[in-house]
């Protein structure tokens, strides 16, 4: 019917680990068994990671100096979370990542809606989105520094650019891919384009839009960390990892990595929870 033919449709996949955790949490009261099953899976994953981590230096794959033992990292982590400096840097990173995310949402939703509702634009530009998707967006970071300087603006811009594309594509595809019967039904009532948009296309696109929004938040965090490390920033968790790495204080560097991982996990769980509240019909999409 429109540009949908030329863009691979990303089907919302419901089985991310954040999803599992939310499911486990929501049903914990009623279904202990399900919770235990998920807890068991998590335990296996943790054991595998820790086991490999401990095993690598003795096997001669990497030197102990560059890969400190997990318990050393844990010790550093406990010290680190008690310092004000870590939280200041975490705040700086969160601030840039959220601003980048906000910009990505604003631009991404706007262009996604335009591409998804103006068939001419969709057809003309959709092919390039695929190509753009293959391009590592970090290559823009140096250009952005040239344009915007070394301040937060270039970091926010990097985060936004890294995060934007999934929102654009998922919004566009979500708006285009509507059940034929539903479109026919609305047409049989001569429903105006405007009403069709709000009554059908927007709600029908929400599950896919949310897939994009979730990807984008984590991408924005990744973009921020990369920018902080690349741009010679003086603050942020990315800068901290880069700093400790340069001083070969590997246990501290890994401790910061653990903090980043925890933030990412908390954020995805929050978003998965929000998604369930907003898209309560998920899994029963209009077909």
């Amino acid at each position, binding site marked *: 019917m429109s540009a949908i033919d030329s863009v691979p449709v990303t089907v919302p996949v419901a089985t991310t680990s954040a999803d599992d955790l939310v499911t486990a949490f929501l049903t914990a009261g009623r279904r202990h068994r399900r919770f235990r099953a998920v807890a068991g899976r998590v335990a296996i994953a943790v054991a595998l990671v820790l086991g490999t981590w401990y095993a690598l230096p003795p096997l001669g794959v990497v030197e102990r100096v560059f890969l400190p033992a997990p318990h050393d990292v844990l010790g550093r982590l406990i010290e680190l979370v008690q310092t004000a400096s870590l939280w200041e840097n975490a705040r700086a990173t969160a601030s840039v990542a959220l601003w980048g995310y906000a910009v990505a949402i604003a631009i991404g939703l706007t262009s996604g809606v335009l591409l998804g509702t103006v068939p001419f634009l969709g057809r003309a530009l959709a092919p390039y989105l695929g190509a753009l998707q293959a391009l590592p967006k970090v290559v823009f970071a140096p250009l952005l520094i040239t344009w915007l300087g070394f301040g937060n603006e270039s970091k926010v811009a990097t985060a936004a650019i890294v995060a934007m594309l999934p929102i654009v594509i998922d919004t566009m595809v979500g708006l285009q891919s509507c059940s034929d*019967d539903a479109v*026919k039904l609305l*047409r*049989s009532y001569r*429903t105006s384009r405007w009403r069709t948009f709000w*009554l059908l296309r927007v*709600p029908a696109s929400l599950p896919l839009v949310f897939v994009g929004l979730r990807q984008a938040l984590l991408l924005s965090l990744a973009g921020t960390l990369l920018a902080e490390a690349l741009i010679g920033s003086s603050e942020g968790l990315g800068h901290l990892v880069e700093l400790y790495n340069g001083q070969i204080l590997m246990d501290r560097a890994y401790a910061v990595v653990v903090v980043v991982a925890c933030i990412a996990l908390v954020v995805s769980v929050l978003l998965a929870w929000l998604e369930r509240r907003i898209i*309560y019909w998920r899994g*029963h999409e209009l077909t």
Partner: protein
Amino acid sequence: MKSPAAGTPDRQGADDALVVEDVSHVFDATPAPFVALDHVDLAIRRGEFVSLVGRSGCGKSSLLNIMAGLLAPTRGRVHLDGTVVDGPSRSVGMMFQAPVLFPWRTVLSNVLLPAEMLGLRKAAYVARARELLSTVGLSQFERSYPWQLSGGMQQRVSLARVLLLDPEILMLDEPFGALDEFTREALNAELLTIWQSSGKTVVFVTHSITEAVYLSDRVVVMSPNPGRIDRVIDIDLPRPRDRDVMASSRYGEVVVDIRGALGLR
């Protein structure tokens, strides 16, 4: 060929709700264009229950879409209440094989959808929507979501929705085709009751000969390649009909007659 001026009901009798006049429809296809309908004429009387039966590809759904104003025919025209159809009309309500209920809306809110689609004041239709839900036996489910209901219940909601704005003509495209035999019979019986008490005109597309005979005043038998009307068969079984009619010998004769017309022996 001479054609009458637009809007003149010259070929339309006073009792005709819908007149299909020399309609042909060709779909662009490779390697050759596909003739979905070839010179089709049909008049449907006000209050009549007419079924279209035929094999896949005989053009029955295309004909329905053309009558509903959703598809512009390659040639010919359709008169609805004396005016030429040039698009969907409010006096026609459509129902499909899929219930097409919006999963983010409650049952009641789905039934109210036609009012919202036309930009009418929703509050004015709530009482009627509730009444219709009670007609189809779903009063206590008005706050449920469609996906919490069975397939048959979903199709009942869809039936209530199509009745909301009280269309004169119902165009039903295999509405119960995806349901099991038991649910299907129950819904057919309900449809008959609703039709009988409302006096609406019904055009019903189906694959099932027995269903068509049980429900209809006339059965239009179509054949594919190119899509044509082979025969129009009057069903002279007494009304009101219930399941007992299926046990009558006349019922059997009519079914055999239609099977013959479809080339089934």
